């Protein structure tokens, strides 16, 4: 068996999610290859060529792959699929967008968001917003899988000597074109890879008030997240959202500020090692999952915490 991992990158650097996905792949078989699809990605290939625990890096470098369009990426993956028993990608928005397209083209039923590998055919995945874990066994000859990266440790980004090769892309489908992007710029760590996350909810009251969240986050070297309510209210951009359908995080420390703790939010953060909840409502459901709950006015507590920590 050989396992293909589709790399997550931004055309310039390899994203850490790739390293977690390789760990999941290595639980299936030690013969793991990494595929990089992009345009002008020689730096990404050079980074991947250092990864410990993989046998080969394959790069398809083509203008049609510059924006990760699913209509162009899926045929490129499918063209390689013949020799692989498993095709894995992280369950990022890129992986979630492309892999089902690959899966349908290969006539195989994808297994989404796995959190554990039992054997080469059997996997565990969360369902019902993480309120249940399903162990599923695939009868398909070829498995297409997305991986919940927080459930797997990263492999070492250094120390490997995989072989490198290039393949041709399949060209532009003509079906879709990139128009523009509004990328949130931040010097803070990436939400899904951060060791500490500070998140704000509806209780923050406004986007302006998120400054006190950011001040604490910067003191701790943390990422900033938010509940759906805070995003819907326009306090912060969509990419801050932690939850069932937003980002799933599992940091060492998660600090929930002014977040009541809807099921859908808990689904995105209850894998965190330590959870701190700060909320004025002592009955808020978030306290039921918190290791340390502090009831009180966040506008007093947060500046005090930032000052003393």
């Amino acid at each position, binding site marked *: 068996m050989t396992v293909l991992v589709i790399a997550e990158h931004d055309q310039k650097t390899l994203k850490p999610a790739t390293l977690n996905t390789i760990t999941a792949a290595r639980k299936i078989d030690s013969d793991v290859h990494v595929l990089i699809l992009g345009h002008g990605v020689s730096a990404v290939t050079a980074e991947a060529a250092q990864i410990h625990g993989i046998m080969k890096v394959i790069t398809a470098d083509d203008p049609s792959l510059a924006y990760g369009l699913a209509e162009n990426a899926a045929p490129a993956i499918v063209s390689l699929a013949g020799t692989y028993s498993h095709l894995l990608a992280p369950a990022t928005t890129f992986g979630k967008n492309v892999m089902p397209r690959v899966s349908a083209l290969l006539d195989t039923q994808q297994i989404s968001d796995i959190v554990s590998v039992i054997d080469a055919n059997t996997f565990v995945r969360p369902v019902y917003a993480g309120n249940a874990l399903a162990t599923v066994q*695939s009868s398909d000859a070829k498995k297409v899988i997305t991986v919940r990266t927080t459930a797997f440790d990263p492999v070492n980004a250094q120390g490997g000597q995989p072989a490198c090769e290039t393949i041709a892309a399949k060209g532009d489908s003509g079906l879709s074109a990139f128009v523009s992007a509004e990328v949130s710029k931040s010097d803070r760590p990436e939400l899904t890879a951060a060791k500490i996350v500070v998140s704000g909810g509806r209780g923050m009251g406004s986007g302006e008030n998120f400054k006190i969240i950011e001040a604490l986050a910067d003191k701790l070297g943390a990422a900033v997240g938010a509940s759906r309510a805070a995003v819907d209210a326009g306090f912060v951009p969509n990419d801050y959202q932690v939850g069932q359908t937003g980002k799933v995080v599992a940091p060492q420390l998660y600090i929930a500020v002014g977040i009541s703790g809807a099921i859908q939010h808990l689904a995105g953060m209850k894998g965190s090692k330590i959870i701190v909840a700060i909320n004025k409502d002592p009955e808020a459901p978030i306290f039921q999952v918190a290791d340390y709950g502090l009831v009180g006015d966040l506008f007093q507590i947060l500046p005090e915490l930032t000052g003393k920590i």
Partner: protein
Amino acid sequence: MKILVPVKRAVDYNVKIRVKPDQSGIDLANVKMSMNPFDEIAIEEATRLKEAGKAAEIVVVTIGSDKAQDVLRTAMAIGADRGILVQTDAPTDLGGVEPLAVAKTLKALIDQEKPDLVIMGKQSIDDDSNQTGQMLSALLGWPQGTFASKIELTGGKINVTREVDGGLETLSLSLPAVITTDLRLNEPRYASLPNIMKAKKKDLAIMKPEDLGVSYTPRLKILKVEEPPKRTGGGKVASVDELIDKLKNEAKVI
């Protein structure tokens, strides 16, 4: 323009689910079921396009038991013109009708109905797969605009703004296309009583999977369904000083 909107009857958003004691699945007996929230957003978006004069007809489709007619009526009360139920007694959450089979069913219906646009939820809140729209567009050879927070029809194309990990991204897709909805595409309306009454008279066709040449034999066998490990939360601290002390000396995370 004709729009097809697939919808699903799933456990209600607010229900706290229970795993069956024999670990075979989720106990759905006497549990409130509703239209999957992302699908409500899809039907709302289609309805807005029709109200704006950009769509002529909205066809709503579901797969499920006879009870799934409820969600078709709900969709017709919001704005769909007619409904199609593909009737099956197979479970639609786990171990029954899987995303690939749903995509094949929809492909067969689309070959008959020939819509210009499909708008559907990005995932259902029961099995949380997030696959069907992407699979459907692959089977049709159409472009896909997933996780949409804004769509705009312009000169025979559709511009789709997508919620992606880094922020927002806008793509231009040729038509026909498949769009999957994210939370912020719109806020679905509540159907008015007169519209609920009118919806009862709208056309609802019932088909069988065999009529469409599809089978619901699952590819994934559910070996067991368990509750996740419980967190022992509920701990409280009285002050910021105590919190900092606990984080430093007990949890050792800062």
